[in-house]
């Protein structure tokens, strides 16, 4: 059904167009309808976002509201709140630097040169450590800033990174436990994994944020932020564990037998033989899971964190910019889009590359 036809030698431009879009009356109609829809949307969008939009702060909210198009002044006026939340104004460069550290870390871990257990752990350890030191301060002459002041994009990234950092090893543990030969261990773990998977993430975040303090001794409660991260990591790991397990099932049984016959212990077999191959099998699904969980970090807004969505709400919700909600949401959507789209494109690229490699 794909329309890839090898072109006859050097057709005229017009003929080519005709063949591609107006081959039959039905095709022509479809093309025209699509074209009309596209033209309408693109024109409306451009007109709103560019031609009739206001970009400067100088006129103030009133002039902006009067304009027919988008009011990007709200972004110019409030971008710092959206990106950094309530982080102290003079210290916001640290927050920006911390975000850069996380982005660099993500880019590095997309490079095959870093795909060994030790290197990836090193990259993520350093990246997260750098983020934490930069954000929290208290050392190296950086003034202390507590977690309660973190916010915006920086907080979103922190929750995502720590979720993965805790969730990934946990996922591997869960997958191994579920694959265990010992029936009670695999059954109990299966129950935990399926139980968590059947619940909505919000209910887990809510339980960890609000209910858990009742059920834990004082000394174990910790900060609400870290409890929520733990809940989010648990949810991530339940899904990732099934992906890892799928990857392990793709490793032929002969591999483990060969390792056993060479006298390797359980941990040597898992660490050196099974997991490296399983992770390779599971890579596309894993990246997809990262994409999903990045989008899902936005849910912490419900349990009362000042991440990028909440800071966006605050950016337009107070006073004179009340009308400019579309622009603020468009800005946040664009930020999410850049992160999520590039990550999912990368995943699709890997999948294609691996499919070619298998042939």
């Amino acid at each position, binding site marked *: 059904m794909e329309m890839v036809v090898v072109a006859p030698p050097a057709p005229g431009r017009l003929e080519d167009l005709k063949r591609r879009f107006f081959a039959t009356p039905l095709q022509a109609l479809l093309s025209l309808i699509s074209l009309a829809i596209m033209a309408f949307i693109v024109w409306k969008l451009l007109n709103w976002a560019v031609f009739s939009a206001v970009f400067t702060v100088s006129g103030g909210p009133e002039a902006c509201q009067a304009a027919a198009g988008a009011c990007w002044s709200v972004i110019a006026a409030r971008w710092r709140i959206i990106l950094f939340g309530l982080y102290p104004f003079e210290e916001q460069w640290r927050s920006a630097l911390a975000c850069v550290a996380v982005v660099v870390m993500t880019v590095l871990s997309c490079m095959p040169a870093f795909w060994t257990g030790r290197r990836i752990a090193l990259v993520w350890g350093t990246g997260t450590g750098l983020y934490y030191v930069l954000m929290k301060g208290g050392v190296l002459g950086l003034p202390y800033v507590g977690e309660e002041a973190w916010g915006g994009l920086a907080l979103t990234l922190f929750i995502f990174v720590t979720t993965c950092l805790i969730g990934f090893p946990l996922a591997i543990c869960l997958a191994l436990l579920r694959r265990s030969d010992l029936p009670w261990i695999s059954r109990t773990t299966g129950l935990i994994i399926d139980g968590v998977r059947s619940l909505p993430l919000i209910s887990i975040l809510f339980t960890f944020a609000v209910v858990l303090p009742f059920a834990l001794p004082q000394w174990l409660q910790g900060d609400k932020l870290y409890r929520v991260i733990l809940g989010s990591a648990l949810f991530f790991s339940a899904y990732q564990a099934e992906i890892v397990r799928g990857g392990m099932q793709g490793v032929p049984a002969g591999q483990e037998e060969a390792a056993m016959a*060479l006298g390797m212990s359980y941990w040597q077999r898992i660490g050196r033989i099974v997991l490296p191959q399983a992770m390779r099998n599971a890579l596309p699904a894993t990246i997809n899971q990262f994409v999903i969980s990045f989008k899902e970090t936005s849910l912490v807004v419900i349990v009362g964190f000042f991440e990028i969505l909440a800071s966006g709400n605050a950016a337009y919700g107070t006073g004179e910019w009340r009308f400019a909600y579309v622009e603020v949401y468009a800005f946040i959507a664009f930020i999410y889009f850049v992160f999520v789209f590039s990550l999912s494109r990368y995943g699709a690229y890997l999948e294609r590359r691996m499919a070619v490699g298998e042939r």
Partner: protein
Amino acid sequence: MNSTLPSGPAVRIEGLDKYYGSFHALRTINLSVERGERIVICGPSGSGKSTLIRCVNRLEQHDGGRITVLGTELNDDVGNIDGIRREVGMVFQHFNLFPHMTVLENCMIAPMIVRKRPRAEAETTARRFLEKVRIPEQAMKFPGQLSGGQQQRVAIARALCMQPQIMLFDEPTSALDPEMIAEVLDVMVTLASEGMTMICVTHEMGFARRVADRVIFMDGGEIVEEAPPEAFFTSSRNERTRQFLSQVLGH
């Protein structure tokens, strides 16, 4: 695990029973393999021959009887199992090389992490055994880049790098194209001539005739016949053996 055991058989199997669910896969097997002895086990598929040698290094757990390897009994003691696996090498039908490691790494990993040999020593050993199986030039390639025969020779080298006292071969040539069978058998013959204790499950009757000290015929989970090759091929009186031989040698 005492590896300098004075005498006694390399493998002694007494009254071995093995079930898969209600299926009786091995029925009261008795077998003793001396040090330096070469045994070939043959039989129709499903006769339990693979299961038997997989019991020797506990890839399969036996349900009854005793297996003693190099003087150590194979029981629930985890230490015994690990010790025996270190001294018993195995070659599989489907090679089972580790696809994410180079040929050299395949040969080095077990000596390094199981025997705790330093890297340099492991590499020297690995290269020596790759030389011996006649593919030293492939050391830096990945298994996927080699032919079946080459892969199986790497698998033999990988097992030898652990410097085992006993080698188990589980149909090492069954998955190979005909023209590659010879190169693998050549390596096995060399190994046999150096006095390695070998238990081979194979249908290569030429190989059995040339190197085996004893040929064992199994059917239905039992040892049906056990004889030196000459007697086995020429004067077997057992009906099932003769039928099997006529099928294997007949064409």
